[in-house]
């Protein structure tokens, strides 16, 4: 090969390699987020409503999180299976009815103000069948808060002495100790709204707010109103 052809081949090869590396960087790391899960529409509802079923686990388990099996996390039910995703798609101008199976124990709230229920239909949440507008801040295990929609829902935890607690997720509501929390909130115009947990539940990090508390796909997510 002539010198010129060799140089051309070398430069082209370098450009291709760099391009592939950049592509991998962007595609496999920068833009990778959990898949968006749509809330299931409820048939025959007077106001358009959709259902979302979630659970919270103290340790999400190697099946849904091979890299961080000990991290606390939310899981969402889709087609009968529990998946680790925190991006939920819901329709605009409708009601969203959320059921959370709370398998984690309590950690308490750093700011007890967040033990008040705000922004839901009726200003209440139903915990194991009972309607409440606030919980004991010491019992808070997680919260589901969408600040931009004004939705603040504290989730009480499983008591320490409960039997048959779930050690590793995904957890089964049929057999393991849990608390069931239900609430409904309105969606308005389209947009992307972030939600987060406010209970310091990321054990082992400073203020228990590191790790999963700061990671999309665990204790933080998006509500995409479409």
């Amino acid at each position, binding site marked *: 090969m002539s010198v010129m052809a060799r140089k051309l081949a070398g430069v082209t090869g370098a450009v291709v390699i760099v391009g592939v590396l950049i592509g991998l960087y962007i595609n496999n790391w920068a833009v990778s987020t959990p898949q968006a899960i749509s809330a299931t529409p409820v048939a025959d509802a007077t106001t358009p409503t959709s259902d979302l079923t979630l659970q919270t686990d103290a340790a999400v388990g190697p099946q849904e999180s091979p890299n961080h099996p000990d991290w606390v996390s939310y899981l969402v039910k889709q087609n009968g299976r529990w998946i680790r995703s925190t991006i939920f798609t819901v329709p605009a101008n409708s009601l969203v009815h959320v059921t959370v199976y709370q398998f984690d124990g309590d950690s308490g709230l750093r700011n007890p103000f967040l033990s008040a229920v705000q922004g839901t239909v009726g200003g209440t949440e139903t915990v194991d069948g009972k309607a409440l507008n606030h919980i004991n801040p010491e019992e808070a295990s997680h919260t589901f808060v969408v600040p931009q929609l004004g939705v603040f829902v504290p989730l009480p935890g499983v008591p320490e002495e409960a039997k048959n607690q779930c050690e590793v997720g995904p957890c089964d509501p049929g057999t393991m100790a849990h608390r069931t929390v239900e609430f409904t909130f309105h969606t308005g115009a389209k947009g992307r709204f972030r939600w987060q947990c406010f209970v310091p539940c990321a054990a082992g990090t*400073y203020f228990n*707010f590191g790790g999963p508390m*700061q990671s999309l796909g665990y204790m933080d997510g998006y509500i995409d109103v479409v």
Partner: protein
Amino acid sequence: MAQPPSSEARPLWRRLIGFNLLTAVILGVGGYYLGWFIGHQINGKSFEYQEKIDENDVALLLAYVFGVIGFLIGLGFANYPISRLLGKPASLREKEDHGIARYFGLCTDHKVVGIQYLCGIGLFFFIGGLNAMLIRTELLHDTPTFVGPGQYLTIVGMHGTMMMGIFTSAALGPFANYFVPIMIGARRMAFPRIESLTFWMLIAAGFILSSTIFFGGFPTGWTGYEPLNDQAVMGMDSYIVFFALVGISMCLLGINMMATIITMRAPGLTWSRLPIFIWAVFATAVLMVLAAPMLVATLSMSALDRTINTSFFIPGGGGSSYLYENLFWFFGHPEVYILALPGFGIVLELLPVFTRKPLWGYRLAISGMLGVSLLSFFVWQHHLFVSGINADLRPFYMLSTEIISLPTGFIFLCVMGTLWKGRASFTVPMLFCMAWTFNFLIGGLSGVFLSDTPSDTTTHGSFFVMAHFHYTIMGGLVFSFFAAIYYWVPKMLGLTFNEMLGKAHFWLMFIAFNSTFMPLFALGMAGMPRRVSSYAPELKGLNVWVSISAFVLGFSMLIFLYNVVYSLIFVRKRAEANPWRSKSMEWQVPTPVPIENFPPGPIPSFDFDPYDYGVPPSPGGGAQPAPAGA
């Protein structure tokens, strides 16, 4: 230069054995896994938290440290100290005449190190710039859309950290290393092996920082503020090790420069005849030596907090978040002057050549640089005006920050004086110098706003600050960096750049740069904080404009890359020994520069004036052409 015996006869695989880059990578990877293994054996009550967070910071820190040590041993940096300990005689030279392989290992020729730096800085500038393009792509939308929110913070952090860490050595690394010995009449730097060490540490650091994406990234931006730093996942350790390595590299680079300039000047080269570039290098080196260790110390404290549960910065354990802010900015402010001073030196060095006039206000320029150097240690709390520091301190720091603009102003007077009644030819290096003047002016004037506490109340932590430091650092250092490249590469590599491509690069870069960063002043004043991926919807139009301009700016860098490939790889037009007709010593030696810089024998006397341009102003006389061969 003697040919190494039978080097052509030995097969390739035999030649690859030895202390070289391949060995370094192997030992580096080995050291990484060794450190990782040791880290996982360390147990104790203090480390029980590691199980809960599925992460082991001790292991990663040890892995990085052992990896870097293995890497440096593999390159051969331990050989000389060990051989001296064993009583072998001193030797100055290593691998200085082995062809292209010199550039891929430990070489004590300062010219090789200069070119290595140029390539290394180019590589990391490219990576940092790529991250900048990703940031601007995300900011096309007013809600998080393109990249994940955690990844966005890591990208922002990587961009800033990469640029700040790598560009501190942008002027001193390539150009000072290459040209200081030649300009002062020395055959080498004071500490050639340390010089090479600073380069390879920077390379290791850059790769360590890039590896943060495999460990979860880091959420703190380039400033690494506590306590968020302690809260972060394992990727934060990459940042800590990166900056620790950069800090050590900077400190060693500074010591080397100072020792060389102070002790190795040729006879006749008094301080008052030193080229202004050397003065700027000296002022920068002083800052590097004094400020960089502070960074290493601060980050060591961070590492201790993150691993063994000390509480330097956690109030619950008796520490203070203010401690980190003050320690960091005590380094951080001299750091930005480390970035600014070489720009002063490069521009003042190049202007006389292209205006055919002596440097105007030589002593004023020196006092400007040394004044900036000294004052830079007294201003750091202007980063903390609204943070709740003791209110007594603010007037003092307002005063000191306002005063530091005084010596900076001297530089501008010298620039303007050197242009006065000159005969300027607007070559590509000269264009970059002119752009530097405009950019640094805007940057400096916006600094006046930031130094006034009432005004700072709105602009602190907003895009106004971003615009200010991009104008001073990118508009200042990066533009002067390109000026230096176009000016000095014909001497370093003996090849010329294509002038049309150079001008295209310049004009596109200058216009796109201003179009990108000028609106950021408005965005900041309109209430957009830094490091956010969601902003108020009414700011979307301006952000889209800025993003598109940023893409054009990125494209201008591609034009430069194209010029590099075209001119230096394909066309390869030989450069004359002194294409700019400069009177400075580096242009009086032949191209390529001989290994010992000067012919054997005594160094020529250095009692000449490096700025011996121009004709004396004559009353009523005509302009005279330069004497031939000047």
